[in-house]
């Protein structure tokens, strides 16, 4: 069993790439952790689909106001400079290319940037939310994911077999083992854990990992 980053560490790594003042949308669940790890001196402005820009952290338990929630229906708070708006204006921000980065989870990402993250197939109740809008709006669409499924199958694949969220939309993938860019229809390896060899990583990846310059060490603190 290879050592790998925890979800929190993956989120930490993704947070390092967010500039001060960036407008950011974090997907429901795991990607929401990114907000905790903003580097010292940088402050991103967080957008949530249901009509808030610049919201703050979760309130103390018992202080929730259920008119003040994020897209995951979790209570948030306002900060100086928060703005409220309706859903059409909210998605104008998304679709109009005004967000600097959207960070989402994934079931599968293909080497051309196709993303599958909303449906595991025809069974059950389908639900999409704002994911299909986010992947075609933000300037950068990043994915946070374990490098493989629980049973060891690649999540970085040649072609997605699950229903697509968007075509050729992902620009960077932060996994439990590596940082991979999508470039000209290829996976390009940017960083990997020191503890894993290129060949091992390739064997856990469903499509060729290309090289474009040095591969840096992927290092994340205990968080």
């Amino acid at each position, binding site marked *: 069993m290879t050592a790998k980053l925890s979800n929190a560490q993956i989120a930490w790594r993704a947070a390092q790439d967010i500039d001060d003042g960036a407008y950011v949308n974090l997907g429901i669940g795991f990607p929401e952790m990114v907000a905790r790890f903003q580097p010292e001196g940088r402050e991103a402005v967080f957008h949530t689909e249901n009509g808030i820009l610049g919201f703050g952290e979760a309130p103390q338990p018992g202080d929730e106001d259920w008119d003040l929630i994020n897209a995951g*229906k979790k209570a948030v708070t306002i900060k100086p400079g928060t703005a409220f708006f309706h859903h059409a204006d909210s998605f104008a921000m998304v679709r109009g290319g005004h967000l600097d980065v959207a960070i989402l989870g994934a079931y599968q990402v293909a080497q051309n940037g196709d993303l599958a993250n909303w449906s595991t197939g025809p069974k059950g109740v389908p639900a*999409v939310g704002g994911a299909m809008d986010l992947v075609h709006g933000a300037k950068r669409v990043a994915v946070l994911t374990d490098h493989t499924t629980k049973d060891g199958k690649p999540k970085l694949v040649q072609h997605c077999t699950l229903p697509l969220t*968007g075509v050729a939309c992902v620009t960077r993938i932060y996994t439990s083992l590596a940082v991979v860019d999508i470039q000209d229809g290829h996976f390009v390896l940017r960083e990997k854990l020191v503890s894993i060899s290129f060949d091992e990583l390739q064997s856990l990846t469903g499509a060729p990992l290309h090289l474009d310059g040095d591969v840096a060490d992927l290092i994340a603190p205990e968080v």
Partner: protein
Amino acid sequence: MDKRIASLAEAVADITDNATVMIGGFGGSGAPIELIHALIDRYLSTGSPGNLTVINNNAGNGHVGIAAMIEQGMVAKMICSFPRSADPRVFTERYLAGQIELELVPQGTLAERIRAGGAGIPAFYTPTGFGTDLAAGKPVAQFDGRQYVQERWLKADFALIKAETGDHLGNLTYRMAARNFAPLMAMAAARTVAQVSRIVAPGGIDPEAVVTAGIFVDGLVAVPTPAQEEVLNRANVTYPEVTA
């Protein structure tokens, strides 16, 4: 002009069988619980309105609000982006049993389709959903080298929304993120009724602060201390209350 309506029962009296009803709210924020429950009361006492198509971001949570409408069998079809919730059993069971229809729409497309309905735009192009199952069968077109999907407007016979302050002319303000879909739905429905926490005379809302102008609102009914769906669900409330 005075658009005030005296009672919740009166506010929902015009909704007919087979109607399409937009209901404001995103999860519990902005959910017009009292209007919805008044509609359920009417259905339980008269058998009408039934066979409704309901447009909302979600498909109900727990056993109150839209979930309670579904539970009572009033809803034939949901148009929504995210029919999941903390307790989605009511919708899920009926959906899996083939007893309720679902039109799943990406959230931004849902919002824009409703706005288009209100703004007289019969169709528009969006990058959202291109190449996915949710765009299957829809016209596509290329603009400036990029592919887009054509989406149609969405209109309704009625909109039931929750606002914060309303004046007699129907001008509305909202409370924080409870705004969400309400201003769009008010535009897109043939008849819009708002429940508001506070009714003021014309002039009681700063003209700069009006979010929904009165032209989009047909009636308003005062509900001074509205229930919050999330709070009801955390208390395991069922509507109507099961009495022994």
